[in-house]
């Protein structure tokens, strides 16, 4: 029995090492544009590990370097310094046509002189695959993206969503080891975008191919990804699952870029955080002593109609009805503004009125201490 258990653990361990092999790895990647003093570092020493078979999202505002990182992986740009690895092999200086990596472009970049089927078969044809194989794969891809009826159309005759599917099928057809998606949904309207989000997730699960998805849309990142890398100013700010990124942001940028949040100054003695007004909460493990910044999501801010003992007194400044939620703007005694988000009751009436003094509490464990 013990032996069997031991073997099982061993097998499991082996599986873990296999599954944790990295699809793509960037080591100290730097990309500078321009010369000398005018040089702009689009990527400033970025190291990242993207696991095999995961849906990884690079999230950040425009100009944060996420597209540059994607282009380094695709091979359209060479890093100024650093290394890019694909399944452990150095591909830093390999041209794009020798990398088993395909891209779905933001503009789709479909070939206007070719039909839908010819577009999808292009990669396979360039690889010199036999005609029968190309045809079979193209048919399979057409079925995968549900465009069988459009096979012989020119791409200009398709709608935006259909073009998007062609671009996906074209990039997936050569079965790349990694699929790169550069803000592929940004040109679609909201409804179509929602639909394609589901579609992308489905394709990723069905094909098992590693997806690296670039977006500036935090909601897109949260709903689709296995893991997210948040980028800002050419640096990787935090990597983690959507839940980790949302509930345990490391710094002010990550906290404010993903979702709404409140920032409060606090004094720490290592185990307890004292907020202005004397409100005390337990400090998360590993909190250093001294002045710190605490962040709390609005939905973790609880309000009581009177400032009871052990709560943080605040004045209601404004109430905004948002349908499902009621948003309260609160004013603390020291002038800090915070927001609370409360689920609306059945009448939709605000329980608390502007000008009222209320007691604020944070859900235990909700407060997060930021690094900076």
């Amino acid at each position, binding site marked *: 029995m013990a032996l069997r258990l031991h073997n099982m653990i061993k097998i499991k361990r082996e599986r873990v090492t296999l599954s944790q092999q990295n699809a793509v790895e960037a080591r100290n990647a730097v990309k500078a544009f321009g010369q000398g003093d005018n040089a702009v570092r689009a990527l400033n020493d970025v190291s990242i590990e993207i696991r095999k078979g995961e849906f990884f999202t690079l999230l950040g505002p425009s100009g944060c370097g996420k597209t540059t990182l994607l282009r380094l992986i*695709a*091979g*359209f740009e060479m890093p100024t310094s650093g290394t890019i690895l694909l399944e452990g092999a150095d591909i830093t200086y390999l*041209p*794009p*046509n*020798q990398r088993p*990596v*395909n*891209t779905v*472009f933001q*503009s789709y*970049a*479909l*070939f*206007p*002189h*070719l*039909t839908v089927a*010819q577009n999808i078969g*292009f*990669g396979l044809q*360039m*690889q010199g695959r036999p005609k029968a194989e190309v045809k079979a794969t193209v048919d399979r891809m057409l079925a995968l993206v549900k465009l069988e009826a459009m096979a012989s159309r020119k791409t200009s005759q398709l709608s935006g969503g259909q073009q998007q599917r062609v671009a996906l099928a*074209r*990039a997936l057809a*050569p079965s790349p080891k990694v699929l790169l998606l550069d803000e592929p949904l940004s040109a679609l309207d909201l409804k179509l975008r929602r639909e394609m989000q589901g579609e992308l997730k489905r394709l990723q699960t069905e094909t098992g191919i590693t997806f690296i998805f670039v977006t500036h849309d935090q909601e897109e990142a949260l709903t689709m990804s296995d893991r997210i890398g948040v980028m800002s100013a050419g640096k990787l700010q935090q990597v983690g699952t959507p839940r980790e990124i949302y509930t345990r942001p490391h710094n002010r940028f990550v906290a404010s870029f993903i979702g709404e949040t409140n920032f409060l100054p606090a004094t720490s003695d290592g185990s307890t955080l004292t907020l202005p007004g004397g409100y005390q909460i337990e400090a998360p493990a590993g909190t250093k002593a001294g002045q710190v910044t605490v962040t709390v999501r609005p939905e973790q801010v609880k309000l009581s109609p009177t400032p009871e003992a052990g709560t943080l007194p605040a004045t209601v400044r404004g109430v905004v009805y948002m349908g499902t939620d009621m948003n309260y703007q609160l004013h603390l005694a020291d002038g800090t503004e915070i927001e609370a988000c409360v689920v609306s009751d059945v009448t939709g009436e605000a329980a608390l009125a502007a000008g009222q003094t209320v007691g604020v509490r944070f859900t235990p464990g909700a407060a997060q201490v930021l690094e900076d």
Partner: protein
Amino acid sequence: MSAAEKAQAAQSTRNGWLLSTPALVILTLFAVGPLMIVVVYSFLAPGQYGNIEWAFSLDGWRGILWTKDIFDDTYGLADANVTIFWRSIKLSVLTTLLTFAVGFPTAWFIATRPAKSRALWLFLITIPFWTNLLIRTYAINEVIRNEGLLNTVLIKLGLISEPLRIIYTDTAVFIGMAYVYLPLMVLPLFAAIDRFDMRLLEAAYDLYASRWQVLRRVILPIVKPGIIAGSILVFVPSLGAYVTPRVLGGGKQMMIGNFIDLQFGQGRNWPLGAALSLTLLIIVTVALLIYVKYANRDTAHGH
């Protein structure tokens, strides 16, 4: 449709014709009219001192390829004429190919410059148009003649001891025509490449295409309308070129244009000249039809 509506439609059709009348009159007078005169002349007999005689004759058409033996009145193939036709077609095709080979990289270069400097490059390309064709042709003459720039430099450099004999050869005519017609190739190519979405290059490169395949499978098929337009713009005037072969061919390396001129001048054979003009027209039309059809068939199949 009611009667009133019918009347209205008829009125609008009448108005349309009425408004086009000036254009139609001009076209009839200055395009169709002269062509008809040429057609009629080609079926008449030559006059003694030029002009024509009003008598039906097929000698003009026959004279294109056959020549009458002055002793026994039998017809034989006119070798000189065949040579001239062959030279015209050969040089025109070569000129089109050379202008494409030089013009494509040039147009690509210009189209990929930043918008600011692009205007300057285009301006430089069009500068030769400002100068008279004859003067430009003499300039080429000055470069390639035996004591010209090219030979002087090559001899001074010790690369050759004898001057290269280029002037008054087919090569001279070829060089001259390629130079003169190059902008006509570059401009439509530029227009096509300018519209080309450069992001497609990355897409093709990403999908395992080699540089050659990117050119062959993506760039060329997409800029094909520009290639066709440029080729037509170069080939058509090349075939009927007159000044360039005259100046650089020295009157010996005649092309169809010079040959036609000869019939209306010293040759005093207007019907032959008229028939030759129409032959030129037919060659150009047929060549274009074949070319465009071939090019379109290529598009339809996509490979």
